[in-house]
């Protein structure tokens, strides 16, 4: 999959990334061997619940877990150079410049005692040799770009004078200050109202079109990824359990956890009578993750040997994917054919129990 996708370049390639934190209770396996890539002008949606490792993996990309005593292995290739082996000052030159990040909570990401404009100027001056007056002009342009009304006046406002949506716009402006090649957005709209969220998402899409950035969009919200992502990686307990084009993940998902997520959220486009099917249990401990397939204790389709065998992320397509297709990888011990039959039943409105009966006894895969 190193081949360019639809003619675009690989901006970021993460290979077998592992991040562990030693703790009083044992080693926390926050990220447990993930591989993905992001292409210029495209958006990878990373979906997962709290504790799935989605945030830690991107903080590590920016070197932000170094000080927390994280043990990191694998490779993070940004335009060919491995960010994990880069010395701190080289990384600092890339961070905020070529790679930018937007965090969930815009209030705690802005310094309350500095004017918004001053913080933008700082972001610009940190990476460019420009006068402060020029940087201030640029800051006003940026605020205008992200749709803040009356930017020439607002540039001198303090963060508390901004509404939640405006703060997040200011954060986006700061992230875009140096026209990054890669934008990592971690739940950027979770704290916002729906109407504001819709504006921010539209803004991100527009800016991506104009600047051609690659975006990693981290979220727990399937509706948001449906709208934003070209490719999706579903994470569970520190691993990617399924990855494919967004269209495929929604139309033909193959991992029981992905099914669980899709069936457990109320959707405006589903019949109202359709009962939600919760995923039983709770997300697992990352200190002592379940044996075998990490999802097996919550999986309605788990077979006895799934508690022993650890599934690898493998292609579920027959043959090679088309050149402009990202492929479809699934880490599941069920046979691909069984998975497809189960999803057909689930998509038709069956509960997991009904789907199991309909599909009938199935052979465990090798």
């Amino acid at each position, binding site marked *: 999959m190193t081949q360019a*996708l*639809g*003619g*675009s370049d690989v901006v970021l390639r993460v290979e077998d990334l592992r991040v562990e934190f030693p703790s009083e209770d044992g080693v926390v396996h926050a990220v447990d061997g993930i591989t993905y890539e992001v*292409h*210029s*002008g*495209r958006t990878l949606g990373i979906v997962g*619940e*709290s504790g799935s490792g989605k945030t830690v993996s991107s903080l590590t990309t920016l070197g932000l877990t170094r000080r927390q005593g994280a043990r990191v292995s694998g490779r993070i290739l940004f335009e060919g150079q491995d960010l994990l082996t880069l010395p701190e000052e080289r990384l600092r030159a890339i961070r905020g410049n070529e790679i930018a990040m937007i965090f969930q909570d815009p209030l705690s990401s802005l310094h309350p005692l500095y004017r918004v404009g001053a913080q933008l100027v700082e972001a610009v001056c940190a990476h460019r040799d420009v006068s402060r007056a020029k940087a201030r002009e640029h800051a006003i342009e940026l605020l205008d770009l992200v749709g803040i009304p009356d930017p020439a006046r607002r540039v001198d406002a303090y963060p508390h004078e901004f509404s*939640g949506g405006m703060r997040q716009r200011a954060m986006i402006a700061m992230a875009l200050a140096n026209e990054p090649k890669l934008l990592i957005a971690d739940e950027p709209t979770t704290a916002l*109202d*729906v*109407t*504001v*969220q*819709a504006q921010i*998402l539209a803004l991100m*899409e527009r800016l991506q*079109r104009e600047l051609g950035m690659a975006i990693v969009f981290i979220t*727990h*919200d*399937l*509706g*948001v990824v*449906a*709208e934003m992502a*070209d490719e999706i990686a579903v994470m569970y307990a520190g691993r990617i359990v399924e990855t494919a084009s967004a269209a495929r993940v929604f139309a033909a998902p193959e991992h029981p956890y992905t099914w*669980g*997520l899709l*069936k*457990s*959220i*109320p*959707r*405006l*486009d589903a019949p*109202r009578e359709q*009962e*939600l*099917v*919760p*995923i*039983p249990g*709770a*997300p697992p401990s990352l200190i002592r993750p379940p044996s075998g397939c990490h999802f097996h204790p919550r999986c309605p389709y788990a077979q006895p040997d799934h508690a022993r065998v650890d599934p690898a992320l493998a292609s579920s397509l027959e043959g090679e994917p088309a050149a402009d297709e990202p492929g479809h990888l699934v880490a599941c011990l069920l046979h691909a054919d069984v998975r497809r039959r189960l999803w057909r039943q689930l998509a038709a409105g069956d509960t997991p129990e009904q789907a199991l009966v309909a599909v009938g006894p199935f052979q465990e895969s090798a």
Partner: protein
Amino acid sequence: MSPEEPLVRVRNLTKHFPITRGTIFQRKVGAVRAVDGVSFEIGRGETLGIVGETGCGKSTTAKLIMRLLDASAGEIEFDGREITRLQGPALKAVRREMQMIFQDPYSSLNPRKTIGSIIGEPFAIHGLLADRGERKREVQRLMETVGLNPEHYNRYPHEFSGGQRQRIGVARALALGPKLLIADEPVSALDVSIQAQVLNLLRDLQRRLGLTLLFISHDLSVVRYMCDRIAVMRAGKIVELASNEELYGSPRDPYTRELLASVPGVRRDRRTIHG
């Protein structure tokens, strides 16, 4: 009191918070109209939803009905009684019949109390079930009702996951057999895979126990799943109040339409340019 009478009737309910200037000689310079003349009814056994964005007044409305805040104007009638200005023992008696489930299952449970004493606290407050054995049996019955293992009676909140904590909150709210349950954003702090557990629990309990539910949320999809009728609030006012089918099938108010159009995954104006 006929069973057709609505359980809750709210007329022209208003809450203004004063804006003051000065530290010593405070003077009122204006007012935030948090709730600005709302009227609605909640039928017995019905689930009424209030949906709206931050600051629209939906939580303030709930607090006014619970009498956690005093209304600036308007009337609240509960179970045929005017309760807007009740005080003291009369208010306490009414509070037994309405209970609230809060948004954050982490901060709404005292970390130093066992689950048993948290769920049993309403009995202590109202001087009911003084016999320890009897109280424990009742608490364990409640735990079973909400799908908790009764053996976990002596555990502490930190030993439970977010979804289980929300069940504890539901069990506590059900303890006194309330007629009205107010749920303010009950799932928005929970993980996606857990939300459905709590939503289905509330739906199931409502059907089984014939509860009346006031369900407050910012999430239009969740409200559609849960509620029979829905009030859309904006800036302290109800802009539209309609049945589930009407509101989602043919929304009338422009603001309702804007809200619905903003739900991600529904807007389908995705870009088609790749690379």
